[in-house]
């Protein structure tokens, strides 16, 4: 099972070419009638399965598939509307095409075609296999033997089948649909079934990235704030978490696990609870303002969520409440691993605590946790919960399209989807977020040992 060993088998090269060059009549016939070669060699069950797949595929294509593909190109031509009914003598509502469903069926059809092509190739492969076995005079495995192989050499396929179906149905298919929607004008003015939407190419990206429209004027400030937010949220949490971990790790501090548990509480509580509570506490009449007033520190309530700058600072500060303990939890183990000699040598040389922190602790921790830092940065770009639950993106402004001053790209995406039903813009923004995350992660993840040395410990 060595990694470098490439098994030379019929897996390599194109099966189709092989069948055409070396296949016998039965194998060639399998190209048209799937499972023919298997049936010929008494692999009845396998052959019948292949045949059944082909029959149902043809039935599907004739019944709906061809139409689905055709409709996917046009996305519907018939708008729903009032048509004069001769028999009744009045106008009746005629069902039009539903672009949304047409696109969905089209995507589904493409998936089914792909699946069929894979099945067809498997059929050819199997045909060549039985042919070769017969040529060598070896017994052809029956269905039971085949099943046994799927519990052993091909166990990977058995294990992956169900998870892959799940991922295909609930991740890949919806994602493919939404990615395609980014190239249509599926916005709130083109909502099926009342209206049709159609392909418009890259126009949405032009609208978002250009500065001509309100959407463009919304995108750039939100992108800037998303980056600023991700930067501050990541680095303040990081520094704060390390300092807190150092504080708790001090040799003279007793009850370490008690302190740690107190801070871990803030991660352990579901975020919707703690964030919703924080939002209430920071309202004009909320607990924080009440406390500050009763101490005589302020006269007027502080506008935590109504002033843009206040709101931005508030989300960053509240995020510290969740994020600092998180970093503390993750890094305390790492901090304990810093070789003690480094500190001893430094203190003999007369370094004080601040210098040691800057010159020893930080470089060491940063070196070890760079991948974690990047994951956090990408995570913060997509930090939906904290913004949605705390400020709801507000304070709202008329300068932006469907967004407020603290909205991140993801919360804007959410609002465009749920509030204004501008699915095409939402999808285009999703793709832009993907590009940002992908660039950030690919740059770092591929350099980590978790990716490159996955067999280091085996």
């Amino acid at each position, binding site marked *: *099972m060595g*990694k470098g060993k490439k098994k030379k088998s019929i897996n390599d090269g194109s099966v189709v070419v092989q069948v055409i060059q070396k296949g016998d009549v039965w194998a060639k016939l399998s190209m048209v009638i799937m499972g023919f070669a298997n049936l010929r060699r008494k692999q009845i069950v396998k052959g019948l399965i292949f045949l059944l797949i082909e029959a149902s595929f043809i039935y599907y294509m004739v019944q709906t598939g061809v139409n689905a593909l055709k409709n996917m190109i046009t996305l519907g031509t018939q708008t729903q509307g009032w048509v004069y009914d001769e028999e009744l003598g009045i106008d009746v509502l005629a069902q039009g095409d539903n672009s949304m469903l047409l696109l969905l069926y089209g995507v589904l059809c493409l998936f089914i075609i792909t699946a069929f092509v894979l099945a067809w190739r498997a059929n050819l492969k199997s045909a060549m296999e039985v042919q070769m076995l017969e040529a060598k005079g070896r017994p052809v495995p029956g269905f039971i033997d085949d099943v*046994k192989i799927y*519990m052993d*050499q091909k*166990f990977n396929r*058995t*294990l992956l089948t169900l*998870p*892959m179906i*799940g*991922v295909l149905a*609930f*991740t890949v*298919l919806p*994602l493919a649909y*939404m990615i395609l929607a980014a190239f249509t004008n599926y916005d709130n003015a083109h909502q099926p079934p009342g209206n049709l939407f159609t392909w418009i190419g890259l126009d949405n990206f032009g609208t978002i990235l250009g500065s001509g429209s309100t959407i463009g004027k919304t995108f750039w400030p939100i992108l800037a704030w998303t980056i600023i937010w991700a930067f501050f949220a990541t680095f303040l949490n990081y520094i704060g978490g390390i300092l807190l971990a150092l*504080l708790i790790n001090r040799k*003279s*501090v007793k009850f370490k696990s008690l*302190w740690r548990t*107190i*801070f*871990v*509480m803030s*991660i352990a*509580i*579901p*975020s*919707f*609870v703690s964030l*919703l*509570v924080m939002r*209430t506490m920071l309202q004009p*009449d909320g607990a924080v303002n009440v*406390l500050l007033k*009763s101490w005589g520190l302020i006269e007027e309530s502080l506008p935590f969520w109504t002033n843009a700058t206040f709101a931005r600072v508030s989300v960053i500060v509240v995020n510290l409440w969740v994020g600092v*303990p998180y970093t503390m*939890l*993750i890094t305390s183990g*790492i901090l304990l691993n810093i070789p003690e000699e480094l500190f001893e040598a430094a203190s003999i040389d007369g370094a004080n605590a601040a210098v040691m922190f800057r010159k020893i602790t930080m470089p060491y921790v940063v070196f070890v946790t760079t*991948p974690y830092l990047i*994951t956090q940065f990408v995570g913060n770009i997509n930090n*939906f919960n904290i913004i949605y639950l705390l400020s709801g993106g507000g304070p709202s402004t008329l300068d932006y399209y469907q967004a407020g001053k603290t909205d991140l790209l993801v919360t804007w995406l*959410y609002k465009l*989807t749920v509030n204004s039903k501008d699915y095409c813009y*939402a999808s285009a923004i*999703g793709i832009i*977020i*993907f590009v940002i*995350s*992908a660039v950030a992660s690919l740059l770092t*993840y591929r350099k*980590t*040992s*978790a990716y490159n040395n*996955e*067999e*280091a*410990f085996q």
Partner: protein
Amino acid sequence: MNKTRSMSRHKRMKDIASYVALIVLSIIWLVPIFWVVMTSFREEPGSYTSYFFPKSLTINNYVNLLTDNTQFYFMKWFGNTFFVAVCSCVISTFFVLAVSYTMSRMRFKMRKPLMNIAMILGMFPGFMSMIAVYYILKGLGITQSLLALIMVYSGGAGLGFFVAKGFFDTLPKALDEAALIDGATRLQIFTKITIPLSKPIIVYTVLTSFLGPWMDFIFASVIMGDNYDNYTVALGLFKMLEREFINDYYTQFAAGCVLVSIPIAALFISMQKYYVEGVSGGAVKG
């Protein structure tokens, strides 16, 4: 002599300073938690009061929350969430273990491509596909049902295999090879050798997937719409904060928050060791 004394005084000052810092920080960190617990026992209704400490305390908020079913069905929601969490946790755990075992222990042509695809899929924001998922569920005719929630929470679970794969990567491969020589099948290796050795990562996977449904309210609200009967706890509590309910129900909301948070926080705190291993094992190795 003098120097050591000044040093020890210096050290004591530092110790005192660190305790003071820890106590102040602990207070800051505990105030919101303390406030919500206090609000859950407050007798006066309403979301805001012009004072910090409640005037009188009561347990009626809890009693009403659990027994009064005119507007909100907390017990039912709790049951729903528990049911969904158990089902999706079983399915997700199986998916994650199956995929991570395959990716870590077996070698096949599509392995690296599949891993890269999984990573790419993970970079799309999850909310992007929300609406399409909704229409797919609608096409299957199961929107507004608990089954739909289970499918959404566990369907894509197979993509989250990186942490568990990182764990399997650390198990010695010699074990598998020895078993193969002794004639064991891959199925037997998986069930008899790998799984028994993987307690930490199984605990981690089970707990993270069990906690998911308790926290999510976005997918739940898109799928459930107005079907109150099938709400989950998070969604129901979120509903209580809507304008028409917030004044009458805020204290009950707080009580609900406390009731949900206790088991979840207890689970998290007890599993934090596994959690740290899980997170840092995959990401922090450098």
